[in-house]
């Protein structure tokens, strides 16, 4: 098993050096500095849905390590992905982050590790803050249409978000 992992890791390393052969999406997320009111680090979920609204992959889940009580407040993510399988949630959850820039990389594979079929998808970013607001922003993209870059304007709870799909076209 360990041998297999090592082989796969080497394989991944090799593939990543061939830039054009690794289609990927990068979400460049900014959590803005908020100085007004009582500040708590936000709960953040970044995930992808297909054209029917079915979750394909949760890319990031940043929550307090305080049990599951508040997961429901990341409302759309909870309805679409979170409530389905709590052990999956435990597996992907990580700690909340302070204001700043974060790069989220996605290899265009679904939760089962299979590459996505070329079709239309939407990436969602949901940011919820205790005693603060909630913003849900989204970007639809078509894997069949190739590379793109998009910039989502800032909201109260999110700074400008850059989304880049690369490696689809040569």
């Amino acid at each position, binding site marked *: 098993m360990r041998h297999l992992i090592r082989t796969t890791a080497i394989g991944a390393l090799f593939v990543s050096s061939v830039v054009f052969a690794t289609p990927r999406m990068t979400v460049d997320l900014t959590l803005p500095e908020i100085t007004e009111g009582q500040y708590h680090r936000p709960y953040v979920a970044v995930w992808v849905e297909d054209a029917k609204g079915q979750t394909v992959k949760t890319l990031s889940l940043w929550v307090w390590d305080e049990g599951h*009580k508040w*997961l429901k407040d990341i*409302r*759309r993510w909870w309805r679409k992905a979170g*409530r389905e399988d*709590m052990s999956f949630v435990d597996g992907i959850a990580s700690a909340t982050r302070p204001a700043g820039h974060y790069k989220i990389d996605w290899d265009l594979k679904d939760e089962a590790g299979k590459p996505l079929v070329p079709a239309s998808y939407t990436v969602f970013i949901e940011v919820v803050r205790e005693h603060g607001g909630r913003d849900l922003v989204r970007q639809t993209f078509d894997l069949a249409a190739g590379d793109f870059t998009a910039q989502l304007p800032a909201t109260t709870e999110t700074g400008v978000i850059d989304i880049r799909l690369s490696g689809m076209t040569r």
Partner: protein
Amino acid sequence: MKLRFVALVSALCISPFASSHDRWILPSHYNVSAESNEAVWITSDVSASNQVFMVDKPVTASDVKVYLPDGKPSSPSSSYTGGRKSVFDVQLLQDGTYKFEKEVTPRYFSVYKVKGKEEVVRSRLDKKATAAVMPKDAYDLKGSLTVARVETYVTRNKPTDKVLAPKGEYLELVPITHPADIVENEPATLQFVYDGKPVEGVSVAIMKDGSLYRNKPEEISLTSDKEGKVAMTLPAAGRYLLHASIERPSPDKSLADKTVSEIFLTFEAGLE
């Protein structure tokens, strides 16, 4: 034949028992997340009112049934009856969807008039029993059977379907769109069945919370189609009260002329 039909229709339209108050169960939470070993408290208000969710009449909570996600009936852990509302508490231990429901008790009501007197005399007995006790010069005896369901759904973690199934008696509401998945600006479908079969022509009124702070009730009115279904797309997230009703001629005319079956469902439309 036509005349008789008209007479029957007009008799059905006179509804001296029509309750002017909506009854409802308003839970504190509709969807909760929790760890497997955690018990989650839900507290609910029970009241009857003209304004949506403005507590007014102390409808009892002592007869509330709690259907667990595995289908087993249970009871609230405690309840209280106050001057304007009742309250009951339930601890959610299982994952899945619970149904809170006030006990369904079909009730007979009859009315008649007495010669020389203006007002209508009301009776809580069926027609036969009322006929036996009413004065000799009474006339115009009419009776109805009313069945009211007062219900709501609460989900802990992943929603389940077991408690959504109809029991097969009188009017029932089957959520095609799961109550945990009703969301603003997204289409949702509900189905109505009568004695377990889809029923057309059910009048449905949907009212959003906060009518006290609006000049107009802003009620959404719908009627069930041939499959017993109504489709709705709610324009805003929030708590809603649904009132559905249908009148049918009673199977046993000696006891009641008509059967009035109604449902009061409280639900939440989530944020997108």
